[in-house]
Every structure is written in C-alpha cells, then in structure tokens.
C-alpha cells in the first residue's frame, strides 16, 4: 500500500507539471481558437533564453554570477522576449491568417515551431545546459521518516508554483478588464468584435500570457531535466491532458494533468511489467481516447450542440 501511494502521489505531482505545459495550449485555444503546436517550442525558447541571459548577464553587468539580481533581470528579459515573440506572431502569423480554417492556423503554428526552434538554437547554440533554481530535488524527510513515502521537495515546489499560476490566471480572467475581454472573445469572436474589443490586442496579450506560462514551465522542466531541445517534447505530455480536460478549460488542464499523471504512473508500474514496459508513450493517449468516447468534449470542455 505504501508503494501504491508513493506512485500515486508521484504521479499526481508529475501531472501538475504536464498541466503547466497544457495550460499554455488552453489559454491560446480559448482566446483565439488556435491549436498552438508551437507551445512546446515556446517552452524551449523561453527556458533557453532564460539560461542564456543567466550566462551572459554577469559579464554585461558585472553582477554576481548566480545572484538574485541576475536571476530576476534574466527573468524579466526572457519575459520581454516572450512578449516580443507574441507580438511578432500576431503580426506575421495570426493577422494575415485571420478567418482561415483552424487546420491552416494549426499548420502555421507548426511552421512557427521550426522558426522558434531555429531561432532559439541559432542564438544560444545547441549546448545542453543545467539550471539550478535553488530548490533541491531530494525526498522530503518528514514523509520518508514517518510514512516511508518518497515525495520530492522539488515536485512539491513545482506543484505549488502551478497552483499559484492557475490561481493568478483565474483572478486575472475574473477581475481584470482585459480578463473579461478575453473571456468575451473566447465566448464569441464576432460579438466581442462588435462591442469594440480589439481582437489584435487580445491575441497579443493572450500569446504573451501563454509565453509567460511557457517560461515558468520551461524553468521548472529545465531545472528538472536540463535545458535542452528535449524541452519541446513536453508538449507531447501535455496533449493527452488537453483532450482529457478539454481544450478550453483551465481547471480541465489541471484536473486532466492530475488524472493523466497518476494513471500513467500506476499503469507503468502495475501493468507495464506484463507487456514489456515503456507504455507511458501511448497509455495517456489511449486513456484520454477511451475517456473521450464517453465525453467527446473532454472533462470540462463546453458541450457542443449541432444546430441545424
């Protein structure tokens, strides 16, 4: 039983990390109806930009390497880079493609993926880098000593960050003027346009927010596994979360992440050995697929009635 809980909790915590990436997808899909395949590349770009600045800033400013000042300046500069990326994306990709079918926009984001990957590695090089956020990835002793359950302090930290992020986003959507406008756009583009909400600004903002989420996700995943090209693969972990939770639901991303994380770990541990293991590559997808058969619009997705 101890092992079961260990796997379950570990899975839930991993799920939070998936949700963190899925969140970026949801934001963009919600506000612009674009399935942004470049989200994974954005995570990579953001994290690489961040560590890139961490490396060069001490040389530029003369500040202490690894110090707090450098950290925050790098964070701000990376965020600025994501905003620039959002503006450029809106101007050069989204605006010219407005009113195109969703699949065209989807394809454009795949093109964007190549662009962003090329730019990231072109600027910062292909070197694999480590990232230390100052939170040790070690078991929490209290849980170890009392329950013999292994929980990583870093994973708990990541979960807390995700929780804060989701809460902040919820507040942002609920209580700010921009947030309300965003929700209006999400509900109905035409209507939002007709009451004078500038769609372009909304798109830039939402892509910038998704860039911010990507930066946070990139920093956490980067601190976990290193900042390298493989960060783009985090997107593949987020996709089943997305279909389980629904493309348009922020809470769906979180709950979906938890379900996917926990069940894929349990499946790998308890089912994997019988079929040769490594089932984590497809299990989340099959799970989400099976789930969709009962709820085609995902856990929290909006039910769609065909009106004819």
């Amino acid at each position: 039983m101890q092992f079961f809980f260990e796997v379950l909790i570990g899975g839930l915590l991993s799920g939070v990390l998936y949700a963190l990436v899925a969140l970026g997808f949801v934001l963009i899909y919600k506000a612009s109806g674009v399935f942004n395949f470049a989200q994974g590349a954005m995570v990579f770009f953001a994290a690489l930009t961040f560590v890139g600045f961490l490396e060069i800033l001490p040389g530029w400013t003369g500040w202490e390497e690894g110090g707090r000042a450098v950290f925050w300046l790098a964070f701000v500069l990376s965020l600025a880079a994501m905003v620039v990326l959002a503006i450029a994306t809106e101007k050069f990709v989204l605006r010219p493609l407005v009113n195109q079918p969703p699949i065209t926009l989807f394809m454009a984001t795949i093109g964007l993926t190549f662009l962003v990957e090329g730019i990231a590695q072109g600027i910062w090089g292909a070197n694999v880098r480590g990232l230390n956020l100052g939170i040790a990835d070690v078991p929490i002793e209290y849980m170890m000593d009392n329950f013999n359950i292994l929980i990583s302090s870093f994973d708990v930290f990541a979960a807390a960050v995700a929780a804060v992020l989701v809460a902040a986003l919820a507040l942002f959507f609920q209580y700010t003027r921009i947030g309300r406008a965003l929700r209006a756009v999400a509900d109905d583009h035409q209507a939002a346009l007709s009451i004078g909400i500038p769609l372009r600004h909304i798109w830039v903002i939402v892509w910038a927010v998704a860039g911010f989420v990507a930066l946070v996700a990139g920093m956490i995943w980067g601190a976990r596994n290193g900042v390298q090209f493989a960060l783009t693969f985090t997107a593949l972990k987020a996709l089943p979360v997305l279909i389980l939770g629904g493309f348009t639901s922020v809470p769906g991303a979180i709950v979906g992440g938890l379900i996917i994380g926990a069940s894929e770990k349990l499946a790998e541990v308890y089912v994997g050995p019988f079929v040769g293991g490594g089932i984590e590559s497809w299990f989340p997808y099959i799970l989400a697929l099976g789930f969709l058969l009962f709820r085609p619009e995902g856990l929290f997705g909006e039910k769609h009635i065909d009106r004819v």
Partner: protein
Amino acid sequence: MLYREAGQFKASYEADQQIFPILQDRIGVLLLIGFFALAVPLFADQYWLKAILIPVLIFSLAAIGLNILTGYAGQLSLGSAAFMAVGAFGAYNFMLRIDGMPFLVAILLGGLCAALVGVMFGLPSLRIKGFYLAVATLAAQFFIVWALVKIEWFSNYSSSGVITAQEIEILGFAFDGPQSKYLLTLFVVVVMALLAKNMVRSTTGRSWMAVRDMDVAAEVIGIRLMRTKLTAFAVSSFYCGVAGALYAYTYIGTVEPEGFNLDLSFKILFMIIIGGVGSIMGSFLGAAFIVLLPIALDVFVPMLLGDLVSSSFVSNLQLIVFGGLIVFFLIVEPHGLARLWQIGKEKLRLWPFPH
C-alpha cells in the same frame, strides 16, 4: 491560345465525367507520365532517382492516403507514419513467412493490414471530432510504434528490432537497380493515384466530402456516417500502408519502427497542406516541395553564406527559413500548390489575351 477548352463540347455524360475533361490536360498528363516513365530512367542519374524521385513518389502516395482521410473525409490525423510502419512490417512478414509470395501481393496485403489497423483507430472518429480526434490519432502513432518494437515476432526476432527488405523479384525479373526500383514505384504510385482519383470523383468520394463539409446534412440524405468514415480510414491507411511497404522495399531497404515517428507523420501532413487539401495532384506537388525544400536550402544556404557564419548557424538558418516559408506559404496561398496550379491554368486559358 494553346490551352483552350472552347470548341470541346461534351456530347455524353461519359465524356463529361472523365478525369481530365479538357483535351490539353489529357495530353499533358500523358506527356508527363511518359516523361517520368521513359525519359527520366534513361537520363536521370542515381542521385536523382534514389534520393529524390523515389522518395517523392512514395511520400506522394502517403500524402494521397492522408489527403483521402483529411482532405476529402475531413478527419484530421497525425498518425500516418504509424500506418506506413504497419504496411512495411506487414509486407515484410508476408514475404518472409509465405514461400513464393509475389511482391506486389505482399505490399497489397501489407496495405490491408494497415487498413485493418486504421479502421480500429478510426472507430473513435464516430464520437470525436476535430483536434480532439487529431490528438487521439496520436494514440495510434505511439501505440503502433511501441508494439512493433515490443513484439519481436514482427521483426522476426532481430536483436535490434529492424527489418531488412527482401530482394524484389517479379516474374523472374529482379528489381535491384535504381532504374527498375524507380519504375516499379512509379507504376504502383500512378496506378494507385488513378484509383484514388476514381474514388474521389464517385459516390464514395462525394460521401466523404459530404461528411467533411456537413456531417448532419450528410446523415440526413442517407449517408451512413460510420461506414463512410471507416471507409475513409481504411482506404487512407491502405494507401499509407502501401507507401510504407514501398518505403522499405524500394527506398530505404532496412527500416526500424522508430523511423516511422511523429516527425514523419507531420511531414506528410505538411505535404497535403502545402500541396492542397483535397487534391490528388496537390499530394504530388506537396510531397515534391517538402522533400526538395530542405535539400535546396542545405545546398544553397551554405553556398550563399559560405564561411561568413558557422555551420551550426547555417543549419539553424535552414530550419528558420523552412518554418518561415511554411508560414509565408500558408498566408499567400492557404489552398496550396494545387490551387496555384489551377490559377495558372486559368491564366493560361486566357493567354495571350489579357481578358
């Protein structure tokens, strides 16, 4: 002046229903096929045959497969490469385990295996639509590759999980040179493209498009959604499967399951988007474009920049230009190369008069 349909009146519906109703098109296509079947094998060198033409043809076939599913039947799929893998491994096992199995039958059987698997993974499409379905097809992509690695029978217990295509022999003639392999590929692809064209211009194709354009209305006029969608999945996967078998037999030779990865699926999706969604012709154009563009970039970018920048930057620049061109292309002509082709023809129809 040369490209005119004026004066070509159709006296029968039969004549009107031809694939290429305009005489010049018929001549053009025959010339094109003649060129690729006769002139190219004679004059093209090995590099063009092996590294460009054969893969372009094979990818065209896979793109036709995906186009049937996505372009005609409107079901977005990200698992084409996996169905190619099923075709390749299927054909390999038929060749391996049945003595005297004719090559062409083996690749068709490989295609049928892919069709069966395709139908299985197509079942959810009855409930799931759009991007949800697209992501769900990733289940096929990952599961199939996993199964091919895990179940060692598929690769005949090879220690490294790879299969090596057997020699191709048809009626005693060995297809071992680039010319003969190219011609064999061309034959299969052209025949299958023709069959695909027939399907899409008949009731089958109309049902697919009806389901794509408005599934409720399709149902109301008596089109069975399940049967139509599953037929699309079956035919599409069949095409991908045969393409996969050709990929193993006339192109790469020795293949591993991981070669049929998500990247390849995306590449095929690119081909139909760039070439033209819902166009058989576009599948060819798209495949050619996606195969040739990176090669052209790899040749010309270093040539233009030379030693000004490092080789890593050159490689990254290629990626940037590739991505940028895709976006640019989608903006300039969202309907793909096939549409440009059409526009070109319409212009030609008026040429040399401006109006």
